[in-house]
């Protein structure tokens, strides 16, 4: 008698289960593939551009006319310049988009990492410890949430950027990007900290926590070894939903002139420039706008898919 192998029940880890659920979400898969392509393009920007024979900085003066507008229709789209050229200089828009992704992703990913780190540690600590620690962190969060952060960012930029340079950050783009990352981190950790605090509040009443406490575990051990491992799912979901938000915010800062300096490309900078050409070269406005929209949408859909996959209590997940 042989075993009917089809009846063997395999043990699956929670991560495997989540991946199975995620795989069934077609929209999330498409979004994930799209996001990965963008990330790879950004990582390999110099090689991709070399392959396509485009360059984000060289001036293609023959592609623009005597008043600076692209010669070819639809913003100068041609085989040499698939997405057209920038009015005034003739720089390749596709190459600038690819290089601009680097700025957006660097800022968004680093800022997400820092905010998540600070938020998770402080949030769990506050929720686990309660009492005075919770009070101080809670009021700090209230204070930061009440700040008109965008106004502060704009008004502090001319003061803070030279400070960063004085502290040893290289002048120009490094200092400007650091400033944006610092400010985003300063204000951004509050949201995830609140979520983590709530989770920790409920976890600290569970038996395994009480057991660990009874064995005399230190606070740091409790936070990192007992509580944190139970919270990876919400952290991953939150972080994946934060990235697109920061991409959009970085574009906003560039749009307002706080972003990287010339000639480095950034999406917000391209948007700010292209808005002015909405009458004479509408294709130019369309391209960075669409690109930003697609990237933010894709990251959001990946985040949504992750949430559905990692949260078995969620409505859609129950069908699996």
């Amino acid at each position, binding site marked *: 008698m042989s075993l009917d192998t089809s009846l063997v029940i395999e043990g699956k880890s929670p991560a495997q289960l989540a991946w199975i659920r995620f795989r069934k979400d077609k929209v999330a898969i498409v979004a994930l593939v799209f996001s990965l392509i963008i990330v790879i393009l950004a990582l390999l920007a110099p090689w991709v551009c070399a392959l396509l024979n485009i360059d984000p900085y060289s001036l293609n003066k023959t592609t623009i006319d*005597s008043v600076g507008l692209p010669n070819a229709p639809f913003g100068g789209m041609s085989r040499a310049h698939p997405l057209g050229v920038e009015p*005034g*200089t003739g720089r390749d828009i596709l190459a600038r988009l690819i290089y601009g992704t680097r700025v957006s992703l660097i800022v968004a990913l680093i800022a997400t990492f820092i905010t998540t780190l600070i938020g998770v540690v402080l949030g769990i600590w506050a929720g686990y410890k309660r009492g005075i620690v919770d009070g101080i962190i809670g009021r700090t969060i209230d204070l930061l949430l009440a700040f008109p952060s965008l106004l502060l960012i704009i008004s502090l930029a001319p003061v803070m950027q030279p400070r960063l340079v004085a502290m040893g950050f290289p*002048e*120009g783009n490094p200092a400007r990007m650091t400033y944006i990352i610092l400010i985003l981190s300063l204000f951004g950790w509050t949201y995830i900290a609140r979520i983590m605090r709530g989770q920790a509040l409920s976890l600290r009443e569970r038996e395994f926590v009480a057991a660990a406490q009874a064995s005399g575990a230190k606070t740091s051990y409790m936070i990192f070894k007992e509580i944190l491992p139970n919270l990876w799912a919400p952290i991953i979901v939150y972080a994946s939903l934060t990235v697109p938000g920061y991409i959009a915010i970085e574009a906003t800062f560039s*749009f307002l*002139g706080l972003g990287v*300096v010339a*000639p480095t490309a950034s999406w917000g900078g391209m948007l700010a420039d292209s808005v*002015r050409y909405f009458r004479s070269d509408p294709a130019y406005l369309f391209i960075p706008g669409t690109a930003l929209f697609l990237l933010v949408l894709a990251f959001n859909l990946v985040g949504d898919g992750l949430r559905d996959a990692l949260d078995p209590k969620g409505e859609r997940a129950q069908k699996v």
Partner: protein
Amino acid sequence: MKLNSRTKFGVVVAASTLLLSACGGGGTSADGSGTPAKGGTITYLTIAEQFNHVDPQRNYTGQDLAFFGSYVNRTLTSYAHAEGTAGAEVVADMATDTGTATDGGKTWSFTLRDGLTWEDGSEVTCQDVAYGVSRVFATDIIVDGPTYAISYLDIPAGDEGSNYPGPYKATAEQQALYDNAVSCDGKTITFKLNKVVADFNYTVTLLAFAPVPKAKDTGEKYDDAVVSNGPYKIESYVKAQSMTLVRNENWNPDSDPVRHAYPDKVVVNFAQDQAVIDSRIIASSGEDAFLVSMDGIQPENLPTVFGDDQFKNRRVNETDPYALYAAINVKKLNCLPVRQALLVALDREAVRQVAGGEFAGDFADGFISPTIAADYAPNKVLDGVQPTGNPDAAKALLEQAKTACPDVYAKATGEGLVYDHPDTPTWAKNAAVWIESMKKAGIVLKPNPIEPGKYYSVVMDEALQGDISRGGWAADWLNSSTVLPELFGEGGFNISQNKKDPAYAAYKALMDDALAQTDRAAQAAIWKKANQYALDQVWAIPTFFGRSQEFRGGNIGGGYLWYPFGSHDYDALYVIQ
């Protein structure tokens, strides 16, 4: 005079929602043609928060001089309100004629007309003119204005400048020094000069020579509310909002053969969005047909406005008196081959394309604009200079620099030179063009974006200025005495910091020589030489001789570029009835 810090800079567009709301609206009936008539309201739109200065003695930007000279301030002489080169002609304004020179041009006298009045009805006296000019000497309060009165009037100067400190602080003794140089005899005012100034009657067209009633002078605060002796008076002036001018009932048209005073009311709306200004005037629907832009047309809208004949009576595109250049900080780059390399490497064609191509102007070969016909002569530009830049020639020059001045060479090719530019999308592109063309020659350039409103104050501060800073300058009148000494000599707009350059002594000798020269033709010959000299030393890189565009709504007529100022002739604009 200074180039308006807005017009050619292009400014960040931040209000896209506003922009969309301005797109609606129907067509327009009026197309900008008509016959001049009195009445109506003209509304000007500007992105500026306020006028640079309203105080006549502090007013020194071309556009503001044209605006206040047309509407509010009358001077002894002024420029004719006429199109083309006719506008460069000096005509008698408050004076009965264009002045009488005696003593070979060292003494000038002007006689005031009858019936000149202030807005309160009191008479404009010779003493008011003398008092107004004396304010220029109070250099602690009356800042930013032209200082020709100080350099020309026959008042002894000490080490610290003039011995006369202006009317606010002067002792009786010091005041006597001034009263000796500027004296009144009834209606006749006499200026005693310390040298021959053959065209002093051009100098007095500047509003710095406008009268001010002593009793109404509020010092620094006079910059917010001035007493008018022109056809309009200031009804209200709220910075970042608006200024309203209404007819000055006490202005006597019989005493003013110069001005037309067409509209009943003039409104200036500040802090507008440039994209919105262009959109509203392009649409020109309803009330927007009565709008006039004070900031020209943005480069991106030029093809729209000049590509469509429906705008043909509403647009202006003329050569203006500005010479545009990039000043090189000679104190930091005290190395001629490196400066020459910068000049040779620059892709000026690309620089021009960013600025609007054929609308930006013609390539410049020096610092004297061809609009000063007497002084302009084509310069011999360094060998190897090509419109699109010549990286190979630049590299050869850098080779020379390597041995001649290793420090500057190391900075230019390693750490990088700082390029100052206003922080706007258009100027970011300009910086990109500079960086790209220098890169081809092996020169490293670092962009230094500066908040647009603070641009001039930053680059004029030696401590904050970078290595290369762009600028624009136009003659105060058609004599290069108002250009070359200002840019590279003892004047107030020297951002080239070249006075320590060993080559400066020869230049200064040329300046002194030219300023002392009484024969205009001989003087012009020296200016031509000095222009060439400054170019040979590459104290600045000339880019192009400016062109200006102006734009107005369909119900406004009479627009043309006023030759001396490179802006609309505000007096000539009228509401089509």
